[in-house]
């Protein structure tokens, strides 16, 4: 099976968030970067499929120069080769714009399966994989926890709301977005990093890919949310505190 995994480099989970000077995006100068979490699960799913059925895993990432380190990490975990779409204006493109770039790079590869993470930890659009399927005219499914190869294609386990799941059969080629937590991730190893040095990373610039770059949805400004998490201490007698807590659980948390 030839699998393309689209991955994204995002600010590290612990990264301090400060609003940039123009107010349109966060200050990137001091940030450290990591592989987007659900993309890590997409990669893991691809590697496991390859280990079971053979084939090739190609990672694809659009991003500036620094995305190279995340691509290396994916190669170190076991991907066979990579395509890096060199692109400095990722933030100015909307989900459709980015998906167009990725689709243009995927097209000549003719993969059997395209995997992406469910959503990115920074912009959180959660659309790229689904749009890719539309652009490449492939059947797709989203929020996938597990992929199994069948005689006719694949059977996937999809997460529904409120603890329900569903199995879906798809023919190949297909595109899937992978939910975090469906499998166990492997950790990066020294051996993997050393082996990755010799793997191919093909770089294409965004300009070389024939796609329009204007966005239909644009991010105008960003802000810090007014409310930070604080502990509300409920006071009064035991009965009063209990009643207050039930109110909160019912109307604010909506858990009752």
């Amino acid at each position, binding site marked *: 099976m030839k699998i393309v995994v689209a991955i994204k480099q995002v*600010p590290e989970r612990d990264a301090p968030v400060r609003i940039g000077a123009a107010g349109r995006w966060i200050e990137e100068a001091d940030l450290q970067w990591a592989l987007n979490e659900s993309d890590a699960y997409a990669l893991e799913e691809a590697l496991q499929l390859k280990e079971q059925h053979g084939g090739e895993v190609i990672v694809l990432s659009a991003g500036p120069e620094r995305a190279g380190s995340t691509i290396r990490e994916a190669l170190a975990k076991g991907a066979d080769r990579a395509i890096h779409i060199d692109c400095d204006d990722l933030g100015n493109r909307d989900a*459709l714009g980015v998906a167009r770039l990725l689709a243009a790079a995927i097209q000549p590869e003719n993969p059997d399966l395209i995997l992406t993470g469910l959503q990115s930890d920074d912009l959180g*659009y959660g659309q790229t994989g689904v749009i890719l399927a*539309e652009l490449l005219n492939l059947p797709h499914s989203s929020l996938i926890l597990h992929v199994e190869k069948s005689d006719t294609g694949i059977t996937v386990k999809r997460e529904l*709301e409120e603890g329900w799941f569903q199995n879906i059969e798809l023919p190949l080629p297909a595109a899937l977005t992978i939910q975090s937590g469906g499998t166990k991730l492997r950790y990066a190893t020294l051996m993997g990093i050393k082996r990755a040095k010799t793997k191919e990373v093909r770089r294409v610039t965004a300009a070389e890919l024939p796609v329009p770059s204007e966005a*239909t*949805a644009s991010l105008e400004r960003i802000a810090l949310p007014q409310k930070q998490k604080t*502990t509300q201490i409920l006071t009064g007698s035991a009965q009063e505190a209990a009643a207050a807590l039930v109110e909160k659980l019912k109307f604010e948390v909506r858990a009752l």
Partner: protein
Amino acid sequence: MSGILVVLEDREGRIGRISWEAVAAAIQLSSIASEPVHAVVVGADTATLAAEVAAKAVSGVIRMDHALLQTYTSDGYTHALEQLIRVRQPDFIVFPHTYQVRDFAPALAARLGQTLIGDVTSIAAGPLFTRQLMQGRITGTYRHNGNGPCFVSVQSGAFRSDSVTSGNAPVESFAPSLDAAQIRTRPGLPFRAAAQTVDLGSAQLIVSVGRGIKEADNLPLVQDLAAALGAELAASRPICDNGWLPMERQVGSSGQTVAPKVYIAIGISGAIQHLVGMKGSQCIVAINRDPDAPIFEVADYGIVGDLFEVVPALTAAIKAAKQ
């Protein structure tokens, strides 16, 4: 080109709460854009759903019935809604941000050359749409550009479903043309994960007990609370070490890592070994007699008091609230 379409979803034969919230959002948008709101119900036979929506203050209800829409498929919904949108040429299409919408709406928007503005938490004049970024650490305000329709999905709980007033709307039908060959996926029936004896990992509600309970004989107190809530019972390590509860109920670095919707920590001071196992919970409630207990640092709600008084009161209050 004009109007607002809001696409609704049913839950067990009725319009779900989050869909009403989407209607509320569409109505708010209509006050900004001065355009009428039409609700769309999709399925094989939407008569009951349509009647339910027609009793609300919308300008019209569109029934989109087709045998191939009996079960949700991304292909079926995308083809059907594409036809409706091409015919009606709305300015806005509003969805509830459900798992189902996330599965097809981005593709539908892309087919029309648009990008969905998803998971919106508020709508302001412009219109400007606000949504969360960086996993909720910042908010971003979005604007739709160009002449095509604007696709928006709204976050659960962001708009008030009870703001939708009653009305009497006309119902019309739109018959999409669909072919079975267009539907490429074969969805199976929904199922729940096989019930395990103790499955803290996927529990939505957890009541967890620590050393503050003092003796094994006092455990029924928290067991009653868990039963009243319909929650799983968990414990900190010393409770399991003492054999008061089985080891598989231990939450923490050497036990299980949990992320329920609500985690109620009773008599747990909050050692790091415990915190690392439950810090991912969406809402943490702490009941402890010591106001300086570290558990209050991570809690959303805290009650400082004697658990032997607070817990029975809470059990009673929950039973009363559920009646």
